[in-house]
């Protein structure tokens, strides 16, 4: 009889304990980031969509040679000092964001950016981006994984 009542009391007590725990969670703030309106924090070392500075590029093709999946296409007009960049296209259906194109560049004209939202309504949209044309996010920002960006607080190095 004593153990029976103890069991019943233990049942009531543990139920109440569990309910109090979920109540504490109920009154905390949700951790959800509502994506299209709010965006989460990214490290400066985030490897998103490339940022490219066409004025600096010397058309050495080192990035294209370093690319393991051959997704960089470079076209130019003229030779020597008269050479002019006409196309610098990255095929994002191939690119694996490995950042191997960044390191060999002798003039630091290509960087990995913060932009990650590559979704589009049509299959062909946004798959190939020519960085010499248009003014997408890659033309304006310099928030890349460049040594000048410095270490983030949570880099752990």
């Amino acid at each position: 009889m004593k153990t029976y009542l103890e069991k019943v009391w233990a049942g009531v007590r543990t139920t109440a304990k569990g309910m109090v725990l979920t109540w504490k969670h109920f009154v905390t703030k949700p951790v959800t980031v509502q994506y299209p309106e709010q965006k989460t924090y990214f490290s400066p070392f985030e490897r998103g969509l490339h940022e490219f500075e066409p004025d600096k590029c010397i058309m050495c093709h080192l990035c294209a040679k370093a690319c393991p999946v051959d997704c960089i296409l470079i076209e130019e007009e003229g030779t020597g000092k008269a050479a002019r960049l006409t196309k610098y296209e990255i095929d994002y259906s191939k690119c694996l964001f490995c950042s191997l194109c960044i390191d060999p560049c002798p003039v630091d004209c290509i960087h990995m950016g913060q932009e990650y939202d590559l979704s589009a309504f049509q299959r062909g949209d946004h798959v190939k981006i020519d960085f010499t044309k248009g003014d997408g996010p890659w033309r304006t920002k310099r928030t890349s994984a460049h040594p000048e960006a410095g270490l983030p607080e949570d880099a752990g190095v």
Partner: protein
Amino acid sequence: MQQWLDQLAGSGLLAGLPRGLVYTMGAVGACTLVLLFASLLAGEVVWLERRVAGRMQARIGPNRVGPQGLLQFLADGLKLLGKEDVIPAEADKPTFLAAPVIVFMGAFAAFAVVPFGYGLVPADMNVGLFLILALTSIEVPGVIMAGWASNSKWAILGSMREVAQMVSYEMPLGISALVVALLAGTLNLSDIVAQQEGWIWNWYVLRGPFGFVAFFIFFTAALASLKRAPFDLPEAESELVAGFHTEYTGFRFAVFFLAEYSAMILFSMVTAVLFLGGWSPGFPVDLTGPAGRWIGFAVLFAKTAFLLFTMIWVRWSLPRYRVDKVMYLCYKVLLPFSVACVVGAALQVLVGDAVGGAFGRWLMGR
């Protein structure tokens, strides 16, 4: 209701109509109102459940359809209406088709005797409490039919568990309701509320220890007969796919869903009426007037919402019971405690009368 219809029949546009037709129209009108109330509120309870569940898991929950996601249930309902209505080839067709109707009827018909406010009762009966317990049991054959007719092992296992659980939990449910019936001396729900008017300690949950324990037993047994977690063995997603409604799709599934949530609202209202003073707000105020009864309805609604929130809170707090533990809880814990409460309540009425009578005689003697 009948008095009001009599008044209506004796005046205005309806004066020339036969009395029977007026009654029929009144019944259909009341039925439509209650159906709208139950089904719309059930939709919002689904929304509430998902929002509360989200907050308890540090998420947000559905907040995109309509203001704060309030119209989510319409989107879900439309989606279910657009689904193909599949009837399994080996199913017992007439039984399969009848089952959701019977389950929904059991959940919905009992609203007829619930007092929404003073005089706002679709059918004011002397046997109201008994009728509610009887009508909610109609769900059991419906569930057996659904499980058997589906011709699927998940469905039959789920419906067997459901029947065992519901039939067992009818006992503590009925016996703890009997505590209130004893204390009130009536089965009429309007009279039971009338006896709890006045200050908050007139509510049966606070009138003595037996009402207090009976309240928790009633609520637990109601959770079990509603198949809510932690007693959701008949639907146990991780074990039985979806239990007895595994084979149901589209609108038929929606009917099962609606029945489940209307039964939740019904049991919350009945618990509020029996133990938490119904439309009485906890202090003496006259709510019998034409405007006051709607305030009473709002008070009852607030209590119902609190109990619905508690049901949802319990669901997202406690893990599911094992089958034998469910039966242990019913037969070895709730049943003895509820019987003890009935005996105690009977003594309370007896002693209370004796003491009250002696006190009255002492007062009169002065």
